[in-house]
């Protein structure tokens, strides 16, 4: 294949990765931005989303699209409920203390991982894509499902932006993010906002996982990479910034896709890590983050 089509293919692969990454990282970013909680268990909510997607899709009989759609609805809801329980039982009890929540979420990580290993098993299992159609470009055919992941992700990101910027719930979340004590003094139940944000962040990771699981099998250890890459995206983009998360996810996703195809996946990870180091040195608040007050 000539260079141009090869680059185009790499760009498409990078876009798919960026789309999934943006959703996952946005969940992590919102949780830190509003609650100041570094959620080390975020990757396990992603894993749980994928594992539950397999469970739901295999339970529903009929056309694969039915099972997939059921998974797309049910899996994020269950993951959101698990996150809600974790928030109530663990994070609230340590009073959202930043250091304590890191240790606590490491604990949640291992609990979720071992529960998945116990009940789901060590096998990697695929979910059948809801449709099987290839778009014919002049140089190669490409999975229409993969492109639909990009569209679905863009839709969810746009809906999240609308929620944050145009609704009362979003206003309450932004006020809490900025100053929780003053928000309380104006009648905002901050602990309920925290619970909702934690569940919503986990649900975003679960949606990303359901979208990716037809092209990347569900496995109980699959949460590590999304967690690491989400941290990279969130640090580069700026914690709590929707715009920063999307731009950084595109940067990391595309560079990973293109560098992996032309050079090696290892080099892509090295460059991403170097980018994080440079951002931390020269702009610690991230590209679009607000400097600490």
């Amino acid at each position, binding site marked *: 294949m000539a260079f141009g089509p090869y680059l185009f293919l790499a760009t498409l692969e990078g876009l798919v990765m960026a789309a999934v990454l943006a959703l996952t990282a946005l969940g992590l970013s919102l949780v830190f931005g509003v609650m100041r909680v570094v959620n080390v268990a975020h990757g396990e909510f992603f894993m749980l989303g994928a594992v539950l997607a397999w469970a739901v899709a295999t339970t529903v009989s009929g056309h694969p699209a039915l099972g997939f759609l059921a998974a797309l609805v049910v899996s994020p809801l269950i993951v959101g409920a698990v996150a809600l329980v974790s928030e109530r039982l663990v994070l609230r009890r340590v009073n959202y203390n930043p250091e304590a929540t890191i240790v606590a979420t490491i604990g949640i990580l291992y609990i979720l991982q071992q529960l998945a290993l116990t009940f789901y098993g060590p096998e990697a299992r695929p979910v059948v894509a809801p449709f099987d159609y290839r778009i014919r470009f002049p140089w190669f055919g490409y999975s229409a499902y993969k492109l639909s992941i990009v569209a679905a992700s863009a839709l969810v990101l746009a809906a999240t932006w609308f929620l944050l910027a145009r609704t*009362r719930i979003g206003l*309450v979340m932004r006020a809490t993010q*900025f*100053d929780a004590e*003053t928000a309380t*003094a104006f*009648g905002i*139940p901050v602990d309920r906002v925290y619970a909702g944000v934690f569940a919503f962040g986990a649900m975003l990771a679960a949606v990303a996982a359901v979208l990716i699981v037809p092209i990347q099998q569900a496995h109980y250890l699959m949460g590590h990479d999304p967690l690491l890459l989400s941290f990279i995206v969130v640090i580069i983009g700026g914690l709590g910034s929707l715009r920063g998360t999307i731009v950084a996810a595109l940067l990391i996703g595309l560079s990973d896709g293109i560098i992996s195809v032309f050079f090696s996946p290892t080099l892509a990870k090295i460059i991403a890590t170097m980018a994080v180091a440079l951002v931390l040195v020269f702009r610690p608040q991230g590209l679009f983050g607000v400097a600490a007050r």
Partner: protein
Amino acid sequence: MADLLTLEKVDAGYGEVQVLRGMSLALRKGEVLCLLGLNGAGKTTTLKAIMGLVQTTAGSIRLGDVELTRLPAHEVPKAGIAYVPQGRRLFAELTVAENLEIGLMTRGRGDVTRETVLDLFPVLRERLKQRSGTLSGGEQQMLAMARALCVEPDVLLLDEPTEGLMPSMIARIRETVATLRERGVSTILVEQRVDAVLPVADRVAFIQNGRNRETVDVEKLRADPALVRHYVGVG
């Protein structure tokens, strides 16, 4: 005048650090009560204890028949108390309109309340879409008061509202407090400077080491300036 808000032997503080030690205070309906005291005396903590923002370990805080210490902090403003914190504490990334909206969510009557409040601070009407962090110091103080008034409070808690403002703005804030008194809003005003208080206060409570040492009418204070020197060391 009947007491609207009463604090009886309140102990409160931050974790292990106790700041209020048997604080007792009574705010009458429609009055401006000023808390005067040195730094660290417990003035701000008194306001935060009323709002439920610091832990109260003993005593009672009542608004009418409602025991505020039994309410979760976010329910306190719904009982009819609004708070203008020291340093304004605006949501600086939000616009002026969004800051007002946060106040209106508490117990305001929507557009009616908003218009009444904007009539008090007309300059904010021209700045509704501006990010509040970009306002001048005086405008920020007006917004902080406007946001609190959107709660439609019976009691307004003002923590050093004149801090860092130029004299014309200080006069403007005083006028607003006087206007609110005419409208029946009772105010607790925390200040460090007695000259900022005398023109607007009805009574002054001298706070020392987390206690209210004495509450006096402002006329008595004018007649006996030595009281200020006794409790605050200047005057």
